[in-house]
C-alpha cells in the first residue's frame, strides 16, 4: 500500500496560509464600514485700486502765418460738448474765424480717467474720492510723437513761447460707485500766440502729468 504525504519543510510556506487569511479579513471589513467628511476651501481676492487715463488732445489747428488780431483761445469745456469747439479772439467770446480745426488729424478729446477697485463705497452714503494733478498748466513743447497727429513732425524753429494750456477737471471729487468705480475727465484751455512764423508749425506736447486718485473721502 502506498501512502502519499507532504511534509512542510519550508517555514515560509508554512506561514503563508495565516497571512492570506488576515488580508482577506481586512478586505472584508473595508467594504462594510466607510466614513467621510466634507471640507470647504476658502480664499479671498480683492481688487487693487487702479487708475487709467487717456491723454488730453486739443486737436490740430490751422492758423495763418504772421500776426493776427489777437491770441486765440481754444476751450474744451468740461460738460463734454466738444463737438463744435469755436476758437475765440483773446479772452473774448468773439469767434476767431482765421483759425479752424483740421479734419486731417484726430479731433479734440478729453483726458478720460477711470478708477477701479475701490473698496471705499459704503451703502447708504455718498462716497467720493479726491483727484489731484502734479501740474495743471504749462507750456507745450515740440514733439515728433504726438499720437493724435501721426505723420506731423515737430516744428523746426526755435520754441514757440506762450503756447500754453490750462487743465480743467470735470470734478475733483468723483463719486465712487458700489462696484468700486469712479470716472472723471479732463478738459481745459489752449492759448495760441498772436504771431506765428512758418517754423512754428508742427506737433506739440506737454511733459508727463501725474493724476492721482485717492479714494479717501476728504471734505
Amino acid at each position, binding site marked *: 500500500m502506498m501512502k502519499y504525504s507532504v511534509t512542510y519543510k519550508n517555514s515560509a510556506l508554512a506561514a503563508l496560509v495565516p497571512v492570506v487569511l488576515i488580508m482577506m479579513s481586512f478586505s472584508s471589513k473595508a467594504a462594510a464600514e466607510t466614513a467621510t467628511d466634507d*471640507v*470647504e*476651501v*476658502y*480664499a479671498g481676492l480683492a481688487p487693487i*485700486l*487702479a*487708475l487709467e*487715463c*487717456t*491723454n*488730453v*488732445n*486739443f*486737436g*490740430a*489747428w*490751422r*492758423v*495763418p*502765418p504772421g500776426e493776427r488780431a489777437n491770441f486765440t483761445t481754444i476751450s474744451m469745456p468740461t460738460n463734454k460738448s466738444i463737438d463744435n469747439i469755436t476758437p475765440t479772439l483773446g479772452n473774448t467770446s468773439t469767434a476767431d474765424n*482765421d483759425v*479752424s480745426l*483740421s*479734419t*486731417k*488729424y484726430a479731433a479734440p478729446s478729453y483726458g478720460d480717467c477711470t*478708477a477701479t*477697485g*475701490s*473698496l*471705499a463705497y459704503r451703502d447708504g452714503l455718498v462716497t467720493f474720492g479726491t483727484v489731484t494733478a502734479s501740474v495743471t498748466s504749462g507750456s*507745450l513743447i515740440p514733439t515728433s510723437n*504726438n*499720437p*493724435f497727429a501721426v505723420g*506731423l513732425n515737430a*516744428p523746426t524753429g526755435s520754441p514757440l513761447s506762450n*503756447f500754453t494750456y490750462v*487743465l480743467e477737471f470735470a470734478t475733483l471729487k468723483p463719486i465712487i460707485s458700489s462696484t468700486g468705480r469712479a470716472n472723471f475727465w479732463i478738459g*481745459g484751455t*489752449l492759448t*495760441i500766440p498772436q504771431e*506765428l512764423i512758418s517754423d512754428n*508749425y*508742427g*506737433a*506739440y*506736447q*506737454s*511733459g*508727463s*502729468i*501725474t*493724476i*492721482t*486718485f*485717492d*479714494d*479717501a473721502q476728504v471734505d
Partner: protein
Amino acid sequence: MSFSKNLIVATALIFACFVQNVAADTATDTVNVNASLIPAFKLTCSNVHFGVWFLPVRSGSDKTFIDLREGTSLQGQPITIADISGNRRNVALNTAAGGAPRYGSCVFAGSEAAASTDMNIFIATTGEGRTDIRGALLAGKMVAAEDGEYVGLNAPEVDFGSGMRFGLGFPVTTPIDENGAGSFKIVGSLSIPGTIVRENCGAYKAEGVITLTVDDGI
C-alpha cells in the same frame, strides 16, 4: 473640521487688511497734453505785369502781341521773357521804373489733401461777367488804370475802349506736395491795337476784379 476652521481664520485676517487699506488707497496714472499747429489754407499770388512799352503813334490794323513766358537767366534764376510778335516796328521795352514784365506767381500752403493730389485751379472775373472758369484761358479788356502800379505813369487821356485785350494762361491743376503746398504760374498775352494816338499812352489794367481760387477737393 479643524482644517476648515483654520482657513476661516486666514480669510478674516485678509479682510481686516482690506478695511485698513481703504482710507489710504491711492492710484495714479500719467497723461500728457497734445496740440498741433498747421498752416491755414492760403493762396498768395503776385500780379501779372505786361511791362511798359515804347510804341509809336501809328494807324492801321496790324496789332502788336506781347506774350509772357517763363525763362531762365544766365545765373539759372527763373525770369519772365516777353516775346513780341505781330507789328514789331518801333516797339521796345522800357525797363526803367519797374517797367519790366513779370508773370504772376502763385503759391499755396495748408492743404490737407494727400500728397500728389491735384489742386484744381479756377479763375473768375467781374470784368466781363465770367465766373469760376476752371483752368481755362481768361480773356478780357484792358482799361485805363487810375491806380496803375507803374510809378509816374498816369492813366491815358483816352483809352482804347475794347481795343486792347489780355489773355491769361494757367494750369487746370497742379500737384500738392507732401507738406500741403504747391505753386503755379500765370502767364499771359496782350494785344495792342494797330492804331495808336498820343492820348492812348498811359497806364492800363485788366477790367474788373480777377479772382483765382484753388480747391483741393476736401
